[in-house]
C-alpha cells in the first residue's frame, strides 16, 4: 500500500534542517467548554489563503474524543508499513492500546497522496510506571513521542494529548480540513495554521500545529533566538528533533507551565519579556520580580518576530513578540474568544463581535475554560445543545 507513495513525495523524512516560514494563524475557543464543529475554523483560515502557499496546513482540536477522554490520543503519520510495525511494537511495550484505527479521511482532488494516518488511544501500563517511580505518566508520554518521532524511521507523532488531536498535512489548510473531514468533529478549542515556508521542500510532518501531550502550537514567524532556545531545552532533556521554531515554542510551554508550574501570564512575560527600561520604571517589588524572571529565564526569551497561538485542554493563548513584528488580532463574542493573524479572518465567522482589539507587544490574550469538568463528565457536555454563533446548526460527530 505504501510503496508507491514513498519515492515521489516526502512526508516525514528529512527532519534535520530548519525551515523559516511566514504563515497565517487562527484560533477559536469557547470558554464555557461548549463544543462546535470544525467548519468555523476552516472558514476562518480559508480567508487567509494569501498567507499560505499550499505547502502546509493543519488544525488542532480539543474536546473531540469525549468517549475516550481518559486515554492519550496519539495521531501518527507513517511513511512505511515497517514504521507502523515498529511503532506498534514500541507502544505495546509501555501502553495498553485501548483502541486504534485509521484516521478517517476523504479523497479530494488536490490531495492525491498522503502518508498512512493512524490514531491510537493509549493507557500507560501500570507495571511500567511502577518500575519507574520517578517517571510521571506525562513524562512517559513525552518520552514516547520523542522516541517515535526521533528514533523510528519514517514515523512521526502529530499529537499525543487526551481528548484532542492534530490534523495536518501538505496543502492549503482548508483542503487539509476537508481531507480530514473536520466538519464532522466537534471541539471547544480549534486552532489552525496555513503555512508559507520559504523552502520548497514540503513534508507532512513539517506542517503545523506542533503538538506534545495536550499542547498544540501554531505559529507565524521566525525565532532568531532559536539556537539558544534549543540548547536551553536540551538542558531539560527535550531533544528538538524537528528543527522547527514551533517545536521549540511547544517545549518551552511544556517546561514552564507543566514542569515549572508557572501561570500563563508569567510565561508570556518570559517568552516576550518586557524591556529593561520598562522594568526599571516598575514599583520596587514588581521590578525585582521581573528582573528575576529575565535573569533566570533569559535563554527562554523568544527573540524575533512571531505571532503564536498555543492551546492546551484548558487554555488558549495568543502572544506576540516583544516588538510586535507580526500581526495578531483578538475578539470576544459571548463565551467565544477569537485570535487570528487578520481581523477579517475573525469577522468572516463572527461578523459582530462584542469587542475586537489589537494586543500590544508581549501582551498575552488568554482564553480559559470556565468549567474544567469537561474531561470527567463528557456525557453532560454531549447532551448540551450548541449553536454556532452564525446560526448554523452543527452535526454531531
Amino acid at each position, binding site marked *: 500500500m505504501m510503496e508507491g507513495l514513498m519515492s515521489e513525495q516526502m512526508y516525514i523524512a528529512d527532519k534535520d*534542517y*530548519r*525551515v*523559516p*516560514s*511566514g504563515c497565517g494563524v487562527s484560533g477559536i475557543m469557547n470558554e464555557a467548554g461548549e463544543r462546535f464543529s470544525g467548519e468555523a475554523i476552516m472558514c476562518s483560515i480559508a480567508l487567509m489563503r494569501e498567507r499560505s502557499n499550499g505547502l502546509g496546513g493543519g488544525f488542532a482540536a480539543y474536546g473531540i474524543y469525549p468517549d475516550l477522554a481518559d486515554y492519550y490520543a496519539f495521531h501518527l503519520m507513517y511513511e512505511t508499513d515497517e514504521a507502523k510495525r515498529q511503532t506498534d511494537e514500541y507502544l505495546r511495550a509501555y501502553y495498553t492500546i485501548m483502541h486504534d484505527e485509521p484516521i478517517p479521511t476523504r479523497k479530494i482532488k488536490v490531495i492525491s497522496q498522503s502518508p498512512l494516518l493512524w490514531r491510537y488511544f493509549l493507557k500507560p501500563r501500570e507495571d511500567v510506571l511502577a518500575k519507574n517511580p520517578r517517571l510521571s505518566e506525562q513524562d512517559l508520554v513525552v518520552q514516547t513521542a520523542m522516541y517515535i518521532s526521533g528514533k523510528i524511521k519514517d514515523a512521526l507523532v502529530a499529537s499525543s494529548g487526551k481528548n484532542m488531536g492534530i490534523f495536518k498535512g501538505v496543502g492549503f489548510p482548508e483542503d487539509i480540513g476537508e481531507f480530514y473531514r473536520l466538519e464532522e468533529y466537534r471541539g471547544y478549542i480549534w486552532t489552525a495554521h496555513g503555512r508559507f515556508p*520559504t523552502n520548497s521542500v514540503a513534508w507532512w510532518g513539517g506542517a503545523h500545529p506542533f503538538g506534545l501531550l495536550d499542547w498544540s502550537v501554531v505559529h507565524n*514567524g*521566525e525565532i*532568531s*533566538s*532559536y*539556537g*539558544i532556545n534549543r*540548547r*536551553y531545552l*536540551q*538542558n*531539560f532533556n527535550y531533544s528538538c528533533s524537528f*528543527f522547527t521554531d514551533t517545536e521549540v515554542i511547544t517545549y518551552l510551554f511544556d517546561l514552564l507551565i507543566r*514542569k*515549572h*508550574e*508557572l*501561570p*500563563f*501570564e*508569567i510565561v508570556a*512575560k518570559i517568552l516576550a*519579556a518586557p*524591556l*529593561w*527600561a520598562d522594568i526599571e520604571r516598575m514599583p520596587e*517589588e514588581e521590578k*525585582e*520580580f521581573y528582573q*528575576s*524572571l*529575565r*535573569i*533566570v*529565564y*533569559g*535563554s527562554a*526569551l*523568544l*527573540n*524575533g*518576530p512571531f505571532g503564536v497561538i498555543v492551546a492546551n485542554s484548558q487554555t488558549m493563548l495568543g502572544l506576540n513578540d*516583544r*516588538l510586535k*513584528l507580526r500581526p495578531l488580532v483578538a475578539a470576544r463574542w459571548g463565551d467565544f474568544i477569537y485570535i487570528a493573524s487578520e481581523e477579517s479572518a475573525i469577522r468572516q465567522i463572527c461578523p459582530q463581535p462584542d469587542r475586537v482589539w489589537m494586543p500590544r507587544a508581549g501582551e498575552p490574550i*488568554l482564553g480559559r475554560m470556565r468549567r474544567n469538568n469537561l474531561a470527567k463528565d463528557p456525557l453532560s457536555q454531549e447532551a448540551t445543545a450548541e449553536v454556532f454563533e452564525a446560526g448554523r446548526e452543527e452535526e454531531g460527530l
Partner: protein
Amino acid sequence: MAKVPIAPDFIVERDKDKCISCQVCCRMCSNDAHVYDRERDQVDTLSGRCVGCHFCENFCPTGALTVRQNPSQIRQNANWNQQMLTWVAKQAETGGVLLTGMGCDQPFPIYWDHILLNASQVTNPSIDPLREPMELRTYIGRKPDRLELAGGSDQGKGARLKNKLEKQLVLQTPILFSAMSYGSISLNACKSLAWAASEFGTFYNTGEGGLHRDLYPYGANTIVQVASGRFGVHMEYLKAGAAIEIKIGQGAKPGIGGHLPGEKVDEEVSRTRMIPVGTDALSPAPHHDIYSIEDLRQLIYALKEATRYEKPVGVKISAVHNVAPIATGVVRAGADFVTIDGLRGGTGAAPTVIRNNVGIPIELAIAAVDSRLRQEGIRNHASVIAAGGFRTSGDIIKAIALGADAVYIGTAALVALGCHLCQRCYTGKCNWGIATQDPFLTKRLNPTIGARRLVNLLRAWSLEIKEMMGGMGINAIESLRGNREALRGVGLSDTELKILGIKPAGEAW
C-alpha cells in the same frame, strides 16, 4: 668567542630635514634611545636601546621619526628565524629565563577570523538599534534552574518569588576589564579602569595587587582578586569589592605563579600589597591551600562566609587541555562565575617559553566549557567570563554566541590607554605610564583622559554589538548568548567545527 652584541630589534629612522632638535624624543624615551649632542645641535638615536613602544614617534612634533622592524636578515631558514637566534644569544649571555610581557604573539590560528556572523533577510526583519531598544544588560552570578512562586492567583497577579536570587553583578555591556594588578600597572592606569568601569556600569578587576586606598570609593564596580600570593588580601579588601575572584591560573602563564620585580615595588605598592619595599613579589604557582577541587570549595565558601554570602565568588582558570571538566568541577565546587583565560591572555611578566607554548585558544575553550556545562545541566549555576585577546567587538559577539556570558578585555583596554604592545612591561620602564611605577613615567597617564578613552571604547564596541545584533533580528543579548546558530565557520576542519559546535559557512539551518 668574543662577546657579540645582539642585533637591535628596531631601527629608528630620523628625517634630518624634519628634525628641529627640539629634544622631545630625548626627554620622553625611558630607554635613552635618543641622545642630544649639544656641540652639533643634533639628536642621535641608538637603535639598540629601542623597544618599539612608538612613544617618540607619536610625540615628535614634526613627524621626523619612524620606528621600524630591523630589516637586517639572517640567511632564510624555516626552522631558525631571527627571533630564535636572538633568544639563544640572550640566554647564552645571561643564563636566565627569557621574560616577556603581554599575550602570546605566535602565529597560532585565530579562530575568530574563521567564524562569521549571521544577519536577517526577508523572513525576519532586522532591527535598527538607533530606533528600537537593543539590550546588552548582562547579569553575572549563580542562577537557579527555575523560579518558584509564592502566593498570587493562578493568573500570576500579585505573584511573588519564593526565594530571592543570589547576588548578581549587573553589567550594562557584556565587557569587563581584566585583572591587572596595581604594581604591574600604575595607579593612574588603575584609576582609569576604575573610573571607566563605574561610569559605564561595568567592572574592573584588581588582579592580585590589593586595592589602593584611593580606589575604595569605586568598590561597587570592583572585582577583588584573591591569588596564590594573597597580596593585599584582608577583610576590608574583601568587603570593598562587588565580587571576589579566586585566581588559579592566567592564560599567559598557566601553571606558574606571578612575578612582580622589586623595581616596581615602591612605597605605595608595598603598602597596598603588604610586602617590603623593593622586594620581588613572587606568588606561588599553586595556592598552597588548594591542592584539589575540594580545597577550592573550602576557599570559595570561606570567602562567602567572610562576606556573608553577599558577593558572588568566581574562579579564574587558564584554558588548558582539560578546561571543560575543570570548569565543571569549579562550578560544582560552588563558584558563581568561572573566568577562562585563553592562550592569548596578557601578562605583565611571564617566561616567554611558557607564554608562547602553554594553553589553548579561548575560542575552543569557551565552546568546550559551555557545551560541557550544558551537558551536565549546570550551565545556569555559574556565569562564564571569557578572557584572552579580544581585539574587536566582532570577537566579543562571537564569544558570546559561542556561550560566554561576558568577556574580560585587558590588552584592548591598555591599547586604549596608549600601549603599543612592545612587550616590555616587566622592565618597569613603560613610556606610556601604564606598566611602571617610575614617577617620571606614571604621570604620563592622566586618568581623566584614560577613563574617557576607555569609556569611548566600551561605548563604541557596545554600539557595534548592537548593530550586529540588530542585523540578526535580536534585541536582547541573552538571545544571542550560546546561540551558535548565529555562527558559521570558514576554513576549519570538521573536528574544529565539532568542538566549536558550529556549522560550516554555506550550510543553512
